[in-house]
């Protein structure tokens, strides 16, 4: 298990790895050599037992996004969370299958 695989192989995660809709999930069970989480880190880990977007996490913790992201960097580096980047979107490449799924989902609401 390579804990940093999700950050493109870099060993030091950066703020750029976390967008508002990057989903974070606590690693369960935590890696054996992981440092003991600080109280505020433990609060984050409890919240993301199930996958949660960075924006949701910040709102639930009532903390600015920038503060949460700094803590997430440390947690990612410690191997205590995994981070999944959002679906890549650009104006050039548009994913018809994805768009159709979103449309169908909205139609079912």
């Amino acid at each position: 298990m390579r804990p940093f695989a999700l950050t493109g192989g870099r060993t030091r995660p950066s703020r750029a790895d976390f967008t508002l809709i990057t989903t974070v999930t606590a690693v369960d069970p935590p890696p054996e050599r992981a440092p003991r989480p600080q109280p505020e880190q433990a609060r984050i880990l409890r919240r993301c037992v199930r996958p949660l977007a960075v924006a949701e996490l910040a709102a639930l913790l009532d903390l600015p996004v920038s503060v949460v992201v700094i803590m997430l960097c440390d947690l990612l580096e410690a191997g205590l969370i995994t981070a999944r980047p959002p679906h890549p979107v650009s104006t050039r490449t548009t994913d018809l299958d994805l768009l159709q799924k979103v449309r169908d989902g909205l139609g079912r609401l």
Partner: protein
Amino acid sequence: MAGSETPAAPDTVKILIAGGFGVGKTTMVGSVSEIMPLRTEESLTVAGLGVDDLAGIEQKRATTVALDFGRITINDHLVLYLFGTPGQQRFWFMWNDLAVGALGAVVLFDVRRPDSSFAAVDFFERRGIPFVVGVNGFDGKHPYPAEDIRDALALPADVPVVLCDARDRESSKDVLIALLDLLIASAARS
């Protein structure tokens, strides 16, 4: 296979709900979101580095920009987030960040204050981000047909204009579906 009980993280996408202050952005987010609209704060001192119209704001360390957002679970593997963009002109530097990776945008328009959404239209046009215009008829009243609003905003023919009521779930859903139809049509052409 450690942690097999943890559900896999879903793929995520976002759509912006834009327009001037008070046009009904948060109302629309709330009417379609499966959660109460959540509010998160970004501190200006971090988010606004290098932005000229923030000159003088450095002192006000506590100043934050509130972002309201909602969530729609499309299926087990895909979640859509809706972000209301901060309406006040002085927070518009944040729009650049928010726009990165967005599928597209809804620009809400309030017929009582036609000026309030010009700048939002301009923002998305300049960046080539696909958008639809939702005309939020306050109290569900629509005194002007969609074509008049297209003219007033000088919109190209391919930008859909949808009359809506931001408080109504079905109506807000229709605006989002109009955006998806636009995105699907242009993806199918390319």
